[in-house]
């Protein structure tokens, strides 16, 4: 399988920053609490990536390196894990991120019209961000909201039983 590895930048990155200065104290406290749950600190990696993404918005190469320093593991291991999981943004995203479910139960009840509404309203297709950096649209596989299809997740909140009109209203309300 060809993995989506990015080419290393020409300039070698400086030695990874100190986690204590790179992340906020609040985020670090979450890291520490997470690590305490497991017999092996490395098990905290995925939750830590979530916390890092909450603070930084996406997961950069530098973020991976700092997390690697924090967990005392090779940066490539952090990178390898991060790129496996679709919830981690490998590139900067808009201030809001909408994940529209494209799977079967939603497809049967008009998920395509929901995706089309984003294009009509904001001019973006799945995978794209509006020019003003406000909104990123992504397609999701089944999000477990099938009984209230079609549905989407915007900034971590589920919006269910969508119609093109309700989506338009929601998009109008985004700051």
């Amino acid at each position, binding site marked *: *399988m*060809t*993995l*989506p590895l990015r080419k290393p930048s020409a300039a070698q990155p400086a030695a990874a920053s100190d986690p204590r200065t790179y992340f906020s104290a609040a985020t670090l406290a979450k890291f520490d609490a997470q690590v305490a*749950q497991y*017999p*092996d600190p*490395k*098990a*905290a*990696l*995925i*939750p830590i*990536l*979530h916390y890092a993404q909450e603070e930084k918005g996406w997961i950069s190469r530098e973020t991976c390196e700092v997390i690697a320093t924090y967990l005392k593991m090779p940066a490539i291991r952090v990178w*390898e*894990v991060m*790129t*496996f*999981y*679709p*919830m*981690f943004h*490998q590139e900067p995203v808009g201030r809001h991120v909408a*994940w529209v479910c*494209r*799977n*079967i*139960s939603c*497809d*049967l*009840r008009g998920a*395509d*019209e929901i*995706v*089309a509404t984003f*294009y*009509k309203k904001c001019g973006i*297709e*799945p*995978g794209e961000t509006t020019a003003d950096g406000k909104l990123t649209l*992504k*397609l*999701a*596989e*089944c*999000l*477990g*909201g*099938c*009984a*209230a*299809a079609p549905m989407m*997740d915007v900034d*971590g909140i*589920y919006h269910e039983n969508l119609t093109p009109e309700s989506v338009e209203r929601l998009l109008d309300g985004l700051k």
Partner: protein
Amino acid sequence: MAEKYLLTRIETPGYGGSLREYTATGGYEALKLALAKKPEEVCGIVKDSGLRGRGGAGFPTGLKWTFMPPATDPRPRYLAVNADESEPGTCKDRVLMERDPHSVVEGVMIAAYAIRAKAAYIYIRGEYRASKAALDRAIAEARAAGLIGKPLASSGLGGEVTLQVYTHVGAGAYICGEETALMESLEGKRGHPRPKPPFPANFGLWGQPTTVNNIETVTNVPYILTRGPQWFMTMGTKASPGNFLCGISGHVNRPGVYEVPLGIKAKEIIDQIAGGVWKGRKLKALIPGGSSSGFLPAPIVETMVMDHDGTKAAGSMFGTGAMIVLDETTCVVRATKVLCQFYHHETCGQCSQCREGCAWLDQICTRIENGDGHASDVTALLALADGMRSKTICALSDAAAIPVQLAVQHFRAEFEQHIAERRCPFGNRKMEIHHDGLHDESHIHNTQSVHTDVLTLHGIQHGDRVVGAARRA
């Protein structure tokens, strides 16, 4: 109406799921009963009840627990609770976690006690933030009340175990619901399933004995303890006792999550409980137990009962009990394609049959639906699907092949019509492409396949993006 237990509290108006409300309605009584018994006795009771796993495979739960090594084995043991809930159509575990989290926590604690675990990890899919918040709150409440973190005399070596219950989050990969991938992911790795043997009971989390159970499975346990295995067997069928949570979605009037006894007729769920097929239309097909269980045509659904034997006799499987209803206007080829795209996106890529097979199923179904199918494509689909069955590290490969096999078995004419007429006879969207090109594996777990057809359908032009259109012209 049949007796309910899983959703009784949740369906009581005003029930908020707090510790106080839970204990006021008999909550944590089962835990007390369990702790007064030996772990083996608790296993015995669950075994007697005949409870089968609700996560997909339907394995007898009590029996699974007895696979853990004997009490004299000094290694630490773990319980991993599967709240990954990603099988398309499945939306039931979420109801329990969000609305009655203490019933889940109590079930988890009893199961952990029965297998002498020192810690239980609840692996929650990353998108289920509400479920995680509710469980974290419940765990904190239970800890403050001294229910969690108290030493239990369950180690078997005469010593004590202090049971801990933790939540852990995933990050959007379906494969992490597979039990060995779940353990890899919990250890902070890619969700690559492990070859079995060794089985989790011997070599699980961090190489230690581990049991993996689904959320709904463990949530049945407290009720079995307080009311007894005999009571449990009065519901459901002999081979599949108890109630199950049926998430019904798709083309019905009242989609939702309903508690029903195993062995209920599928038609009764569709027509009476879910209010019938929507818009006054007729039933065309049913996916009985989550996407991996494939498509069954209406005449078979007519008489099918919803339990492990009934769905098997119909040529499918019970899976997660998530029913997806397709009305008479639905294009089965499109539905199959949607599922193939899903499995293509979710294959972990370790086994060539699955990695290549999922990609090809997706590519071929997509081109048939787009009117670009070849005369030999139906045969090719069957050959590919056959080559994906029972040959791989985990069952995802089978799960991808089954919907294609059943779709072709029951709706072959529809596939052939698409190919002969070079279009979708249901007038469906013409174009559907992957932004990153056909048969390009680089998008696995990276970018999503994209419905450009959606935009064409809605009369939106976007120039050279419509690669498929150029190819077709």
